[in-house]
């Protein structure tokens, strides 16, 4: 038989790992007996906070991909590129490894991350099977999110190095802050989500812990 801590009235400290139990027939303790951290059965308001951050990320994903992210000006030509447009240009110039990095880190990863988090939120409510696979999916999502920052840093290096050039000017377009916001919001959303909610569904006669 498997027992989950929260269903047995036990609270795990997320910081030091101590399994806390309050005195019998008393309300569960609110802080860890060893390190004093606040205790929660599940991350507080995990569902609603993850949904809110995710909705904001979806909304900003549109300007991040529609507006220009990089504007290059030289004596002969002026080009403005969206994220995908820039990747296509690099591909056509033969720089396909860079093109792949941009498409993966800046386009595919944020989108996949938002879809996966949406699926996790929905499936935790639908009590879908496969909690193990979904927990693994969550870990991957949580890990890869940061790598989308790569394009912001590349943009920063480019404008830092090229902006003082006599015959060329590189500037960052309005898509850049929107894109950075998508990265930060999806990272926050993934932090707000509690993978233990995926396992609560498998417990018969369970209580819901997502309220706090």
């Amino acid at each position, binding site marked *: 038989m498997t027992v989950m801590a929260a269903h047995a009235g036990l609270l795990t400290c997320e910081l030091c*790992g101590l399994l806390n139990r309050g005195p019998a027939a008393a309300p569960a303790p609110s802080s860890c007996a060893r390190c004093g951290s606040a205790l929660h059965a599940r991350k507080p308001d995990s569902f609603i906070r993850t949904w809110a951050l995710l909705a904001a990320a979806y909304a900003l994903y549109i300007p991040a991909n529609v507006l220009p992210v990089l504007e290059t000006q030289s004596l002969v030509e002026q080009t403005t590129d969206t994220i995908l447009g820039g990747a296509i240009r690099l591909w056509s110039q033969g720089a396909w490894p*860079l093109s792949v990095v941009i498409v993966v880190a800046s386009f595919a990863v944020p989108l996949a991350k938002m879809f996966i988090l949406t699926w996790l939120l929905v499936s935790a409510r639908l009590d879908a099977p496969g909690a193990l696979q979904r927990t693994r999916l969550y870990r991957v999502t949580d890990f890869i999110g940061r790598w989308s920052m790569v394009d912001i840093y590349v943009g920063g290096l480019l404008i*830092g190095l090229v902006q003082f*050039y*006599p015959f060329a000017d590189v500037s960052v377009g309005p898509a850049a802050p929107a894109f950075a916001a998508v990265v930060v919001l999806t990272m926050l959303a993934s932090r707000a989500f509690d993978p233990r909610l995926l396992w609560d569904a498998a417990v018969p006669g369970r209580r819901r812990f997502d309220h706090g």
Partner: protein
Amino acid sequence: MAFHSGSFHTNESPGPGFTACPDCDLVQREPECAAPCVVRCRRCDALIHRAIPSALDATLALTLAAAMLFIIANVFPVMSLDLQGQHVSATLTGIARAFHNEGMTALGVLVYLTLVLLPGLEIATLLYLLVPFRFGKVPRALTAASRLLVTMRRWSMVEVFVLAAVVCMHRLAQIADLEVQAGFWAIGAMMLLFAMTDSIFDVRDLWAGPAGTSETSGRTV
């Protein structure tokens, strides 16, 4: 109380040596293992505990090295360009300032936080925690500092910047003479040290008592 093969029943009370998985909340006995070893959840394979001999001392050594590299990474440029007699170089702070000059201060702040402030704070917090431990003392703000460390970890993105610098080198190599500077190598080395720290340091060791002594108290609740 009898526990059978690591399982736990609702009508029993978990004793010392029991823990719950951080990812799936399964109550289970933390198996005794001969260090170095890694304890993972029986059900979902989540990392529960790393038992590495002298992990705190090794982390302290790595952090001291990272502190020196951090200074180099912030003093020297990451890379520089030569074109038509003009010499331009980019430092970490310079990249943040470039965004600010473009009127995108929020992006500049984000870059400064993720590449300068948080990596620096991470190093400082680790030193604050580990130097007293080395001398057998427990730092006063143990809980607050460890919490800060765990929260910050995901937001210091040194390794992402290394990839970005490599991408940038390829992009600019075609149009100008690009030179890799000391800052880049320092950041690259810092990335490796942070990765090594990540693979040995377990914040839970901080509650096992100073100087790696095994747990004598706690765990009795």
